[in-house]
Structure formats: structure tokens, C-alpha cells
């Protein structure tokens, strides 16, 4: 139905001799799902944008053809047309009605000034399918189909009144309402939490089954591919590396790059699921260890006031990071994990009542950070360092890498200039950067390299505690794996304690000694990864685990589990449900070292 042949795209003013998309070819058959996979800069988005003729300014197609023809023959002569040579009017007739698109960021793709209903109806009205009342009925039917709890209200809502998941559903409704033959989805779930992603992907699949449309899915996530696509096209630097049906490509990858991608894709190791006894043993060992917490939260809450509304970001969190361990905190957006990191760094103060204890050395009395005075705080700032999420925003563009890494040394006035320079070089070598690059500026580095710079800066003062706030979520998978390796190696070598915050269970699985799962400001389950992944107890944890897509066609997402766990707490199975007055159950130690928020067994009976 869609046939892309030998497509090349280049940037007009680029100095690069090679086009950014170079001789790409693939086909999509009616009813089929094809995934374009690749890391950032591989040209996958440009390729799919060229299909609808919405290339960014400065980019131009310099060769090839994109043939589109739907077999129903409602496109006039019914023969395939070359979308690249079609007139503007011809292209407009196809856009939205026969080929439609879902964008990555639903907030910026929806107009803030129009209601969802008006925007969706516009698609039908523009293509002259029907009058207002019919359009309205069809929109409402579509809203119901994509899972809006109250379609009439959604029809009247503005985008800002909807949550991220509902917005993406609205986008899908808008793309689907004219019953297109081809749906192009450009990273449709990248901006969403995993549980939402699972549900949105399931929705697209269902709709595809109903209407028989073809889907062209653009993604960087092999897990999504395994769950969604019949065929896959792997792209790298503007070229197709490997293509074929999904089971073949993911099961028996023939190209070196595909193999690397699959190896780098974070997954929850199957070994965990296979060995519950080993998990239990590990949990017991962990519990038996003497409690020597480097950082301890006790009853910490945090309330943000925004105008008249009060938001409880953290609600009575008890947590301790043991010396030399990696504690991972996992949760979706809004779960309070970043607030926890900010509190740990004393960037914010918790509500009165909680305490934060810091033990610089084993066996010494702990220091109460909230009551600490100036010099004690300064000392804490040396011993606890943070690695930020966004490697682009966290480095000042006007300072050279050498200056950036030396900045903590300068702030604490640690050593003289020559010594500082030597330390910067040593630190750069330690994080795998060439020490001769000290005079370069951040813009000359890739995302992964920048994150290494951020890690080097955090290590400059010989900290004991490293707080990493989603350090890999902005990076490509292959780079992500390297940064995780680096963090692991550094932690081993320097004996650091790590507080690792992530929304991705799979990332955490390989790194953590203990995992705490957070939801709505509370810890719902806490256990060593072996125990957590082999025998998750809490429905929310189960949903998170079920929702992370695996790059394996034989392990599809279990949508029912996801929907149950990510849904309202009132729908959870009895022992986990909140009380009648809305109080959640308290955290109990279910098995040694494995805590879960549920009622005791007798109350469940």
C-alpha cells in the first residue's frame, strides 16, 4: 500500500557531504504494522515526515519516491500515487483522511485554544465527509472507543484540562476519526509513563484490528516494536541496516548493529523470574546485614502549595540508604521520586515533623541535616553529590569542560590550580573521556559524553553518596547501557552509596541492590530486585513490571495486569485497598527484607 523507494533527504545548508536519509526503502501492506527503529539522528522521523510532506524547514527530498495507493480505490483512479510529486491540494486531500499522524508530544500537537471536540470534528469537516451533527456523533463514538470515561465532557474539554494519557487518546481519536488507511505514529508513547504506554499501545492495536488500517510506527524502543509490529526496519545514520519481519529480526538478528541494539536494550532479566529461591535467599541476606544507613528518611512529607490547592508530593516516607549499596527508587511521573531527591540534596525542605539523618562514617552518630548549621551543611554538600537528568541543561554552555569539572573544587577551595588541573584530567580519564578535551565546550559532546562530564563533576569532591535523578532517561539505549556500566564501575571502585531514581524498572534491575517502588508520594513496595521481580506483591508493582515492554515477541505486555495495577487504588484486590476513610494500609515486612503496603493477612480473611 505504501512503498518507499530509495528515499534520500538532506539539509540544504548542511556541510555534510552525505544526505541525512540515504536511500531508504521499505513497504507497508494494508493492515500491517511496520516499525521504524533507530536511535536519535538515525533519520527515522524525517523519513516518516516526508510521507506527509511536513519536513522541517531547510530539509529537502533529493531522490526516491513514496508510492501510496489504497486498494479500495476511493482515491479516484485507484492507482498508486507518488506523494513526493503530488500537488499541495492533492496532498491535503490525503492528509488526515487517508493517512493520519500521531505526534510524540500531545500537549504541543493539540491547539490550546480549541476544545478537543472541535479539533476532532475539524478533520471530518475539512474533508467534507459529513455535516456538523453527523460529525459530532462520530466524534463521540470515537471518543468512547478510545476510552474516554465521559465522551461528552471530553468533547467540551480543552487540552490542558486532560491528563497526558487522555491527551494522547484524544490525539489518537483525532487521527482515527476519518478512518485512515495508514496511521503514522511518531514515538506515540515516548512521553508517557510505562503503564500508560502499555494501554495506549494496546488501544492502537485494537483499533487496527477493528479497522484494518496499516500502522507505521516510529520508535527507539525495541520493546515497543516486539509488542506492536509485524515487520521492522532498523535505521542507523540515515540508512536501513536490517529489515524483515519482527520475529526474524529480533529473534535472529543478522546485522551487527541490530545485535548491539538488542543487547543494549534494558530488560528485566529472565533469570530473576526463574529463581525465586535465590531471590528469597538474597532478601534474607540483605535483611540480616547490620543496619548502617548513610542517609535515612524518617516520616518525611512534602506539601507544595500552588495557589489555593495543596499537593502532597510525599507522604510519610521512611527510607534508608545503606552504606555501599545502590537503592533504586522507581515510580511514574508524579510519584514524588524527584521531590525525594531534592529533599535528599536539601534543595527543598520537607514539611515539619520528618527527619533526615546522615552518617558520614560507619558507627558515628548521625547528623540531623534539617537542624544542621552552616559548616556542617557545607561538609554535607561535599559528601553528597547529584547527577542530573538532562545532560544538556545541567552543564553551563559558557564554561569549558575543564572549568565545569573544576567548579566544585573551586567552590570548596580544595586545592591549588596545578593540582586542580591534574585532578580534572584524572577525573576525565576515570569517566572514559579523553583528558586532552578539557578546553572544549559542552556543545562539542554527545549526550552520553555530557552525562559523563556530569558524573565527573559529581565525583570531583570524593563524595560518599551519589544521587542520580534519571541519569539515563534522556539518552539512547546503547549510550544508556554505557553510562549505567560506568556508574556501576565507579560505585564499585570508590565504594559509593547510590540513590538511583528512575521511571524504568528495567534500568534499575541490573544496577540496584534494593528497589523501592513509589506511587502518589508513598512507597508501596520495597525489596531486593531478585525478590521484587520474581515475586512482586503489590498490584502497582505488578503493573509496572508487566508494562515494561520486552524486546522479545514471545513476551507481550499483559494489559489486564497493567490496567488493574495502574488504575484507582479502590479497584485493587482487597488487602491493598485503602480503608473506608481513604487511609492506605501501612508498610509491612512480608518476608525478610521485602516490604509491601498491605493489610495484615487476618484482616484480608
Amino acid at each position, binding site marked *: 500500500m505504501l512503498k518507499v523507494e530509495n528515499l534520500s533527504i538532506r539539509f540544504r*545548508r548542511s556541510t555534510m557531504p552525505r544526505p541525512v536519509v540515504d536511500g531508504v526503502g521499505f513497504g507497508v501492506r494494508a493492515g500491517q504494522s511496520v516499525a521504524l527503529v533507530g536511535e536519535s539522528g538515525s533519520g527515522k522521523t524525517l523519513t516518516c515526515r516526508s510521507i506527509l510532506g511536513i519536513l522541517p524547514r531547510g530539509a529537502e527530498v533529493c531522490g526516491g519516491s513514496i508510492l501510496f495507493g489504497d486498494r479500495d480505490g476511493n482515491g479516484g483512479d485507484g492507482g498508486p500515487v507518488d506523494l513526493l510529486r503530488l500537488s499541495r491540494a492533492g496532498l491535503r486531500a490525503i492528509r488526515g483522511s487517508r493517512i493520519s499522524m500521531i505526534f510524540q508530544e500531545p500537549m504541543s500537537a493539540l491547539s490550546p485554544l480549541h476544545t478537543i471536540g472541535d479539533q476532532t470534528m475539524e478533520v471530518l469537516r475539512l474533508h467534507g465527509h459529513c455535516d456538523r451533527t453527523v460529525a459530532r456523533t462520530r466524534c463521540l463514538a470515537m471518543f468512547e472507543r478510545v476510552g474516554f470515561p465521559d465522551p461528552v465532557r471530553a468533547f467540551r474539554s480543552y487540552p490542558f484540562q486532560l491528563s497526558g494519557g487522555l491527551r494522547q487518546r484524544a490525539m489518537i481519536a483525532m487521527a482515527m476519526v476519518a478512518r485512515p488507511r495508514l496511521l503514522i505514529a511518531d514515538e506515540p508513547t515516548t512521553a508517557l509513563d510505562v503503564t500508560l504506554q502499555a494501554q495506549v499501545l494496546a488501544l492502537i492495536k485494537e483499533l487496527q484490528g477493528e479497522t484494518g488500517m496499516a500502522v507505521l510506527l516510529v520508535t527507539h524502543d525495541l520493546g515497543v516494536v516486539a509488542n506492536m509490529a509485524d515487520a521492522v526496519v532498523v535505521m542507523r545514520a540515515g*540508512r536501513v541496516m536490517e529489515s524483515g519481519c519482527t520475529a526474524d529480526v529480533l529473534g535472529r538478528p543478522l546485522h551487527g548493529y541490530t545485535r*548491539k541494539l538488542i543487547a543494549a536494550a534494558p530488560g528485566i532479566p529472565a533469570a530473576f523470574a526463574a529463581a525465586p529461591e535465590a531471590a528469597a535467599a538474597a532478601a534474607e541476606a540483605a535483611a540480616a546485614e547490620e543496619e548502617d544507613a548513610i542517609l535515612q528518611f524518617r516520616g518525611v512529607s512534602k506539601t507544595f502549595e500552588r495557589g489555593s490547592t495543596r499537593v502532597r508530593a510525599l507522604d510519610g516516607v521512611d527510607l534508608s540508604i545503606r552504606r555501599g549499596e545502590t537503592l533504586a527508587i522507581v515510580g511514574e511521573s508524579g510519584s514524588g521520586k524527584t521531590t525525594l531527591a531534592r529533599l535528599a*540534596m536539601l*534543595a527543598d525542605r520537607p514539611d515539619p515533623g520528618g527527619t533526615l539523618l546522615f552518617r558520614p562514617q560507619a558507627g558515628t552518630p548521625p547528623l540531623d541535616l534539617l537542624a544542621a548549621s552552616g559548616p556542617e551543611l557545607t561538609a554535607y*554538600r561535599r559528601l553528597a553529590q547529584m547527577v542530573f537528568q538532562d545532560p544538556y541543561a*545541567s552543564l553551563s554552555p559558557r564554561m569549558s569542560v575543564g572549568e565545569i569539572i573544576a*567548579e566544585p573544587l573551586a*567552590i570548596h577551595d580544595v586545592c591549588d590550580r596545578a593540582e586542580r588541573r591534574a585532578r580534572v584530567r584524572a577525573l576525565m580519564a576515570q569517566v572514559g573521556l579523553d583528558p586532552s578535551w578539557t578546553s572544549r565546550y559542552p556543545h*562539542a559532546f554527545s549526550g552520553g559524553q555530557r552525562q559523563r562530564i556530569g558524573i565527573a563533576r559529581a565525583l570531583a569532591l570524593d563524595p560518599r553518596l551519589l544521587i542520580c535523578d534519571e541519569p539515563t532517561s534522556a539518552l539512547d539505549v546503547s549510550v544508556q547501557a554505557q553510562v549505567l556500566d560506568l556508574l556501576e564501575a565507579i560505585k564499585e571502585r570508590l565504594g559509593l552509596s547510590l540513590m538511583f531514581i528512575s521511571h524504568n524498572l528495567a534500568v534499575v534491575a541490573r544496577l540496584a541492590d534494593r528497589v523501592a517502588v513509589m506511587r502518589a508520594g508513598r512507597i508501596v513496595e520495597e525489596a531486593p530486585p531478585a525478590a521484587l521481580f520474581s515475586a512482586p506483591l503489590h498490584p502497582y508493582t505488578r503493573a509496572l513490571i508487566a508494562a515494561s515492554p520486552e524486546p522479545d515477541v514471545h513476551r507481550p505486555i499483559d494489559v489486564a495486569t497493567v490496567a488493574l495495577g495502574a488504575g484507582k487504588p479502590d479497584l485493587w484486590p482487597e488487602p491493598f485497598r485503602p480503608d473506608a476513610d481513604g487511609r492506605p494500609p501501612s508498610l509491612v515486612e512480608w518476608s525478610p527484607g521485602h516490604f509491601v503496603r498491605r493489610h495484615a493477612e487476618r484482616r484480608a480473611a
Partner: protein
Amino acid sequence: MSESPEHYVDTRPYPDPEGAGAATRFDPVASNRRLMLRRFLRHRLAVLSALFLGLSYLSLPFVDFLVPYGANQRDVEHLYAPPQAVHLFHEGSFVGPFVYPTSGHPDLKDYRWRYEVDESRPMPLRFLCPGAPYRFLGLVDAEVRLVCPPPGASLHLLGTDRLGRDMLSRLAIGAQLSLTVGLLGIAVSFAIGITLGGMAGYFGGWIDAGVQRLSEILKSLPELPLWLALSAAVPAQWSPVTVFLCISVILGLLDWPSLARAVRSRFLALREEDFVMAAELMGASPARIIRRHLLPNFASHLLASATLSIPSMILGETALSFLGLGLRPPATSWGVMLNDAQNLMAVETYPWVSLPMVPVILVVLSFNFLGDGLRDALDPYHDD
């Protein structure tokens, strides 16, 4: 999809993801400043404007040497004389640069001056010759000029005004005041704007609210009457230089709100950046954060916004002087010269008296182009 599509593999070598390839298209060693310069040089109009303005400002100290007449030197034989041409050939033979002498007589019927060119006597120009005395750089008495009129003839390339003063010379000398009033005014408005805007952005709270309200009040006042009132307060017996300083300060005092706002919003935006947060968490003091992390990141933006607000200063001076409330004769500025163009009759009969508009337009446009170019060059996402 029963029949499986062929399993295609590209066998050509591919760029290795772990290879240490260049991360960007740019020269990796180049500093941000160099990259900005490169982007700026791509903006042709801005480069042209920068060259024009650079030459103009560089020539300001030497203006007296470059022009044939003094600012208030009168040529009573040539009142309202039209622009004269410089010729090279006389009756087919090469003579070198020369002018034909002109003589004027009053036309009592139309009540205006008429000038006749005597095309029989070519009078060559003299170069590096003694002319009307002036003080070079305000320090040394000098009288050497680049070019002087031949004895017995005049050299009014752009004509003369009501009192027989050479327009070209006055334009060039007037530039000294007109171009610098903008810089002085910007200095004043910068000092106020950065201080107040920075305070508002960094401390927030009631300081922010106070500065914001004050700037809103200032912005809401009608500009022209306010200028008029303030300049009317300048005592008439003050020397031209004092008046000039006063005018600059007045313009600066009224211009700071927009700058303060720019500074404040930059401050607010930068404060939220992760790298500022990182510095805070490393234990850096507020002073260090402002100096090392905030200032370098917005200095360039300030430069661009300053460049864009100089034109309003120049226009302000011109407008005030045009109305007779800014600089006053014997000081010479473009506004003072345009004051003569108030008389419609004069403009109609002697159109060259409104020529000072041309440099005003050129300079204002150049500053705008330059500011645009700077702003684009500083925007890292522009055209990459």
C-alpha cells in the same frame, strides 16, 4: 501477513555507535564565542551594518580633519546654496577634482536665493591644506584639513543652510553628539536596568513586585510630554555639553524599564536551569552563582538588547532637538539641524535642509540590523 517479507540486511560498513565520532557538526574545540562569531558572519546585512557603524564611530574623533568647514563657519555669500558637484574633466581634458565657482543673487519675485554656476573657470580642490582652525581631539589647535575649497570658490557638497553653513560638515560634526548620546543614554539605562532587573529576578518577592510596578508606571506615561517636561527643567544658561549630558541621562532614565524586564526574565529563566541548581547544590554562594554561572550566560543577550535600544535613544535626541528642547545651538547635532527643517517653506524651496534625516535613518536601521544579527547569532537553536 502470512508470507514473511524478505529479511534484508545492509552489508556495507556502518558507523559504529561506540566509535568516538564527532558529536556535532561544529569544530569541537571552538568556544561558544567563536561559534557565535561564525553565525554572525553569515548574517550579511548585520555584518554590513557593523562595518558601517564601526567606521562611523571610528571616524568621530577625526571629523574636524575630514570635513572642509567648521560647524559654525558661515559663508555669507552662499545662503541656502544648493549641493555642488565635484568634476574631473573640463571641456574634455583631465584636470583632477575641481569645482565650478557659484555666485548667488536674491530672486525678489519668488523671494528666494538663486545660484549660477560659472562653468568657464574650473577651480581645483586643495588637499591637506590649512582651513578654518579647530582643536584636534579637543586638545591641540590645528588647521590642517583633508580637503579645502579653492580660494575664491566654495565647496558645499550637500549645500548650505539658512546661515550659509556647510551641510556636509555640520552633518559629520553633528554625528559626534548624535551618535554618542545613544551610547551614554544606554550606559545610564543599563546601569539602572541591570541593577533593578537583576534584583527583581534574583530576589523575587516584594522587590520584584515593586520594580515591576515602577516600570509599568514609567512605561504608561506618555513619552513625549515627559521628555518635554524634563528637558524644560534644564536651565537655559547651561553650556551645550552640560545640556547634552543632561539629555542623555533623561533618555536613559526613561528607557530602563524594557531593559530591566529583559534582565529579569533572563534571570528567572536561567535560575531554573539545571546547571545553576547544580552549582547551588555544590554549595556555591549567591555571589558566585551570579558571577560565574548566570552573568556569562546572559551577557551576550544584554549586548543584543542594548544594540536594539540605541536607536530609540538616537531618535529621542533627534526628536527633542527637533522640537527645540534638546540640544540648542551653537551645539550641532542632527536634531538641531532638523530644527531648521521645521519651516515648510524652507523645505519646499531648499529641500537639502532636511538631509539630516538620511543619516538618522541609516544609523537607526544599521543598529536594528546589527541587533537582529547579534540576537540570531546568540540563539543556539537558530538555523542549526
